């Protein structure tokens, strides 16, 4: 590292001293006059290099002028100037060094230098070193970004030279990181590369992995007899192992034209078809050729006659495989570098794994909070009151549509959400109270009937929403400050909207606990839940308490609807997607206990994410397995994770 630093410093110093002298650029141009004038990509390299390393302060402007096709040569003496069109056929020439106008010349006396795209690319690469030290910070950033996008060996030296002079701390660290990456990729010195790899190992950046992965990429090779000495072998492959079966090996030989291809069933069939002769193929009647054995016999007969290529037997395959060795080799020739890169990737892999677990945990947490939000209203109506409300999902949907309607009236997203939340509560509270008064009140003694009646309401509400809002999804847009994600590193990130939902779930939990434990309504609700008759004789009006509790549960569902609508599309089927999961959450958690609901939501959320992680391509399967798991779980804890005991359990 110190060595590298010194090297960078030395280059920098030479640059500084050179610019202090500030030599004229014209002599250097003249030195390469013929090459520049010719403008061939093959020969131009030294000229560009000479200009770029001349140390002249004019070098950058020369290169830029050249690339912009504004450099002209005076035919009389071969001098180069900045040319600018004066009139139709005359050009004003300006000297590079003095910056003075030399005079106006007719076009015939001049030659315009038109670098082709190849040369312009080379000029551009040479210009990078100037851009990296450009006084304008944005230009330096642009230059860095372009190198990051398209790294090349040529960029390494100018980049190193520019680090020491960098004043901006952010850019400096970017430059240093890029310098390390380029060192790994392109430095001539193997030791320096290994040192850089070791220094960077454990870093989670995607750019590092993008640099290291090509180093350890392997290509499969085959050789007759012995493995060649000059390749960097990754693994020696033995045909017949699980990773490299004899079929793979033989196919590989066939692909490289080292062995005759096997005769497939299709080939055999085609060969027999083209050799049918008077109802017979290979001496066997065609009608009998309906088994593989008969076809093989016929084919063998044809092969013996020499009309078709012979069958490749297992013995042939074995002999061919025995003659060759198979190996995976690295494109990178240095063994030290590949070993270091492999080790670094291994340690990165471990770290990535840990971070992925963290990311998964965050995902699961946010899913759990969504389920909790969706289920908390249900926990009140089902858990506390014992009323099963199949229309709960439709209350969530109503909340989401309320948010959508509010957004149509109030265009400001932040304000509309602030209005929508209490409004959604009010709307669903009213709907809940109406439903309790009109329907559920009459069915308290008959829970199964409640289930069916509320289901009737559910389909009616769903169809009503479809009639009013149509079948297409309606957007409920989150305010701008909820866009984006909190990024911890290249692996772990969580969107702000999920954080907001998590916080909302926590608030709900707090509100619920507060209402239940600290308010009059909570006290009365608990009393009515435990023993309605006794509560009534104590002066509590059970009808009113039930109505308010049901309204509260429904209202919370409405707020959950606004929250869910922010990240899911608002359709009339929105509630359907959550209803079964919500019931699961309440049942798994344990009825009648908010902490049970929390535990249930956490379990279902983590379980679903966990299963999805095991089988990432298939969320349907994840849901299936989760439900099966829950059914089995109920076997062992029929009353949920946190079961009520004693009289409250109602047994």
């Amino acid at each position, binding site marked *: 590292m110190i060595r590298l630093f010194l090297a960078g410093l030395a280059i920098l110093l030479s640059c500084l001293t050179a610019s202090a002298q500030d030599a004229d650029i014209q002599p250097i141009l003249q030195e390469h006059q013929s090459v520049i004038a010719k403008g061939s990509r093959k020969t131009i390299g030294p000229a560009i290099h000479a200009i770029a390393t001349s140390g002249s302060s004019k070098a950058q402007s020369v290169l830029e002028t050249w690339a912009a096709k504004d450099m002209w040569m005076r035919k009389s003496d071969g001098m180069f100037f900045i040319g600018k069109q004066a009139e139709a056929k005359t050009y004003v020439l300006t000297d590079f060094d003095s910056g003075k106008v030399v005079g106006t010349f007719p076009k015939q006396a001049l030659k315009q230098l038109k670098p082709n795209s190849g040369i312009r690319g080379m000029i551009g690469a040479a210009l990078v070193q100037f851009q990296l030290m450009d006084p304008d910070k944005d230009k330096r950033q642009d230059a860095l970004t372009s190198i990051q996008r398209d790294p090349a060996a040529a960029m390494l030296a100018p980049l190193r030279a520019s680090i020491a002079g960098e004043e901006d701390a952010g850019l400096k660290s970017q430059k240093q990181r890029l310098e390390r990456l380029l060192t790994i990729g392109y430095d001539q010195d193997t030791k320096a590369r290994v040192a850089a790899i070791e220094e960077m190992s454990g870093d989670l950046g995607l750019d590092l992995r993008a640099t290291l992965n090509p180093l350890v990429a392997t290509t499969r090779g085959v050789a007759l007899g012995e493995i060649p000495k000059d390749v960097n072998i990754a693994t020696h492959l033995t045909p017949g192992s699980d990773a490299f079966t004899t079929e793979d090996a033989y196919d590989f030989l066939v692909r490289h034209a080292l062995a005759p291809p096997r005769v497939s069933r299709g080939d055999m069939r085609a060969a027999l078809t083209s050799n049918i002769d008077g109802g017979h193929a290979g001496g066997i009647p065609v009608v009998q050729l*309906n088994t593989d054995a008969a076809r093989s016999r016929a084919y063998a007969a044809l092969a013996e006659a020499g009309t078709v290529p012979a069958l490749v037997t297992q013995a042939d395959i074995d002999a061919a495989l025995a003659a060759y060795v198979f190996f995976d080799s690295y494109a990178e020739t240095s063994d030290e570098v590949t070993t270091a890169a492999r080790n670094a990737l291994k340690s990165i892999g471990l770290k990535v794994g840990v971070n992925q677990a963290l990311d998964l945990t965050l995902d699961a947490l946010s899913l759990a909070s969504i389920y909790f939000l969706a289920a908390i209203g249900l926990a009140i109506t089902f858990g506390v009151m014992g009323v*099963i409300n199949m229309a709960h999902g439709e209350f969530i949907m109503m909340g989401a549509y309320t948010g959508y309607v509010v957004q149509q009236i109030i265009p400001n997203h932040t304000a509309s959400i602030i209005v929508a939340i209490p409004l959604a509560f009010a709307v669903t509270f009213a709907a809940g109270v109406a439903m309790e008064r009109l329907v559920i009140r009459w069915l308290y003694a008959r829970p199964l009937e409640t289930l*069916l009646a509320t289901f009737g309401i559910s*389909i009616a509400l769903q169809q009503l929403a479809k009639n009013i809002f149509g079948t297409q999804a309606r957007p409920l847009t989150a305010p701008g400050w909820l866009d984006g994600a909190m990024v911890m590193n290249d692996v772990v990130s969580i969107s702000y909207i999920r954080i907001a939902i998590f916080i909302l779930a926590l608030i709900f939990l707090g509100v619920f606990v507060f209402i239940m434990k600290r308010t009059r309504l909570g006290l009365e609700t608990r009393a009515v839940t435990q023993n309605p008759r006794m509560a009534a004789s104590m002066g509590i009006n059970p009808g009113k308490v039930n109505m308010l509790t049901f309204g509260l549960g429904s209202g919370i569902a409405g707020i959950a609807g606004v929250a869910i609508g922010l990240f899911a599309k608002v359709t009339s089927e929105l509630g359907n997607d959550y209803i079964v999961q919500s019931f699961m959450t309440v*049942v798994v958690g344990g009825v009648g206990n908010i902490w049970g609901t929390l535990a249930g939501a956490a379990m279902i959320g983590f379980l679903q994410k966990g299963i999805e992680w095991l089988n990432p391509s298939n969320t349907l399967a994840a849901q299936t397995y989760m*439900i099966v798991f829950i059914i089995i779980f109920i076997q062992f804890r029929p009353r949920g994770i946190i079961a009520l005991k004693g009289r409250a359990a109602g047994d």
Partner: protein
Amino acid sequence: MQRSFISRNPSVLIFLTCLALFTVTVTVMSEGSGVGIISTSFIKTLGKTLCLCLIAVAMDLIWGFTGILSLGHFAFFGLGGYMIGMWLMYERTRLIVVESLSQVEIPPTATEVTDAIGNQIFGVVGSSDFPLIWTFADSLFLQLVLVVLVPGLLALVFGWLAFRSRVTGVYLSILTQAMTLALALYLFQNDSGLRGNNGLSGLQNLPGVEASQDVVSLWFLWASALALGLGYLLAAWIVSGKFGSVIRGIRDNEARVRFLGYSVETYKLMVFTLTACIAGIAGALYYPQAGIINPAEISPIASIYLAVWVAIGGRGRLYGAVIGAASVSLLSTWFTGGQAPNIPLGFYTIKWVDWWLVLLGMSFVAVTLFAPKGMGGLVDLWSKRRTPNRHGADLGPSDGALREQEASQ
């Protein structure tokens, strides 16, 4: 002296007579018989309705008589359909494949035929191999056995798990709903082996049968009517005997029956499994008439509709279930098929395609609230069935038991 089964259950005779009359009338008026008053597609609708009546009878057995609100019987119905659909699809594809391969110069090997069938059937989900569950698809007999066996086995395992841990009431309903959802989600996957959300199609074409759909639809109508008649007889026989008394006891007070020494779990499991088998048979008759089956058919909502039919028809009486299923599903077809006339209100036109579900939902709530006996209760007006008089006391003490107030309504 023991009275005969029929005399104890006069409704069975009436029902069977009505069913026979209906079948004969429809047959005479069908296109297949030449009269052609009833179109073939409507014959199919009627045949399908008979299958729905059969599963409604099963639902009534499990819900109306045993008190278990299962929201999973359409899963069994769908499974039955899938089982018969596998054979129909395999056999028909095989005939087509063999026909096309016989044009080739060299006769095909058995493997080639199987591969070609696999390609035809599973090409749509990007596969060509037969999954394990298709092992018996080439045998009609085995698939017919599976029609009963697969739903029965699933019900047996699920029921054993659920009843053993004494999950009852709404918990059981939710659990059955979860099971249905799990099954539907599983079948929606492409690698479930049953063609994912494409489902099985072309089931209306019976392999090897040359007869036109006009005639085939009649065959299915007869088969469905026969199955419904037999199913009804079986159900009536079950509920009229001692077994029926026990399961009604379980409905009204499970704990008391258990304390009397009956193995409640076994009874429940038997009814659950039996009704699942009936549902499977109903499905196996339904889907060849529908022509296509896909996982959407067994989504939880379908099972809830089944409960709705039975509730509207009147649970706890077998003819109620049949009336409910027939009337609601036919009305539903009429309304959603766009045949019902729109009602212009001046400012708004009520299109029944859009508003039928609202009407159904609301009328369902009304039935639950005001007429717990459903349409079957109308029969009581005519037969003057006496309701129990307990002077206001409930018939059974537990939640969900039949209450005197309901019984006398």
